[in-house]
């Protein structure tokens, strides 16, 4: 049994316990998946506090609706989808409230932790270079890359999570890779790590 399968089995067991009203089981699910959800939420929202709020809301709604959730066969993908929905809701309401802030500046907002790392280790020149790469990728392209490489999901799972057609997943992935490839030659591996922090 692979680690991924074992994790999923543990999650299903905890899910079952939680749906019977065991709060602690829900807490355990939150602990196990927190950083995966956080990484994904951060990619969509670009904001540390908003992402944490979204995760809080997600788990709170799960608790409230536990009786009507039914049997969930794939816990992690299910929670990623739910978080995505929640994050997009927040994002669209924010957009209505504050159209201007959400232009290009918003795209590159990073958590304070990452900002600190970048400030200490990245030259201004490299930073501009990375911005160019990121700007040439669409939000959807970045999301596909994140799910494919960070979450290790296959195209079919990605198409379910993002609710897009399978062919669109392949297209997005291929376009994104082509764009990154152009810049790969100029950037060192270390710089590329920063790209992964910022973009995916």
């Amino acid at each position, binding site marked *: 049994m692979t680690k991924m399968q074992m994790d999923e089995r543990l999650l299903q067991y905890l899910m079952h316990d939680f749906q019977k009203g*065991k709060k602690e089981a829900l*807490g*355990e699910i*939150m602990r196990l998946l927190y950083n995966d959800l956080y990484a994904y939420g951060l990619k969509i929202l670009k904001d540390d506090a908003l992402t944490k709020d979204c995760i809080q809301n997600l788990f709170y709604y799960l608790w409230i609706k536990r009786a009507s959730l039914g049997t969930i066969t794939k816990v992690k993908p299910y929670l990623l989808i739910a978080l995505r929905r929640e994050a997009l809701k927040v994002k669209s309401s924010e957009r209505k409230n504050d159209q201007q802030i959400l232009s290009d500046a918003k795209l590159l907002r990073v958590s304070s932790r990452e900002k600190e790392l970048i400030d200490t280790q990245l030259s201004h020149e490299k930073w501009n270079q990375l911005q160019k790469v990121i700007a040439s990728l669409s939000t959807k392209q970045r999301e596909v890359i994140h799910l494919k*490489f960070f979450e290790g999901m296959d195209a079919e799972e990605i198409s379910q999570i993002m609710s897009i057609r399978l062919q669109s997943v392949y297209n997005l992935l291929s376009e994104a890779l082509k764009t990154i*490839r152009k810049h790969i030659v100029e950037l060192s591996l270390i710089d590329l790590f920063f790209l992964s922090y910022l973009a995916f």
Partner: protein
Amino acid sequence: MSQFEEFEDLVNDDSFRDWILSDDSEHQIFWENWVNENPDKKIEVEQARKIILISAHKPQGLSNEEINTEVDKLFQRIEKSRPKLFIQRPFIQWAAAAVMLLGVASIFYFLIPFQNEPAFLTESTQNGEQKVITLEDGTKVTLNVSSQLSYPKKFGKNKRDVKLDGEAFFEVVKDEKRPFTVNAGVLDVQVLGTTFNVSNYNEDEQVDVELLTGAVMVKLSDTDTNGIIPLRIQEKFSFQKTPGNWSIDKIASEKQVDWQNGTLYFSSTPLDRIFREMERWFDTEIDIRNKTLLPMRFTGTFEDPTLDSVLEGIGFILDFNYSINDDKVIIEFSE
């Protein structure tokens, strides 16, 4: 053999990814040969290698501590949304409280001097046995497996002191003039009238005090510390015997102290502690063949458990096989 014309084909190929990311990939020989035979693909390979390496690099997330804070936040919100279940009834002589102490030391003598040197009685239980004792003042004590309670035949004028090794559930009759104290080795638990659970097994490293309702005070016997810690409803006090640290957390579930009704409860409990508790509960000996996996933790509740059902439940999750021979359980983790 498939052709890898494009950089993209390489990036998307599972065996190529595996070769890049793991030290002892089964695809190593294949890809080393392929690279040698296709020198014109050198740039593509290098680009693909880079993109795989960066994309497999997970951004730093929250620390365990920060995550625990988030979980606590969730629990607080859940608690707020929940209607209070218990109603105060002041005319009732029983204040309800439950306290659980796990794993305390020293059985040898009483630390607390008793007034008028009252005569002492001792009741004890074996593995797998439980017993109900009624004290002179009407206080009811349910002894859990493999435990011992020492108490005076008649309590003094201004205090009621007992000593416990192992685990017991107390229903103390209220008497404001005579506080009731349970000595559990490194800790004293003091109450006026309340319902609580104390568990004090020598072999456990950690002491837990869990208060469901009512109020108790935990007193560290260590004179240097001189600390008296009041516990509030739904709080859990944990004391590490070495190095002597303590902390207070929110309680997970009332099931935690529901052993009298046959509930076995684990909440993120380390596996070695689970096995010790099972040994006492089922009067058995558990032998673990490969101990490297013992730091794993398990969360779950077993109602009316049997040795088989608990082993099967935990074994299913943590992936081990077991066999039961006579009074002995042998556990073998899957590699």
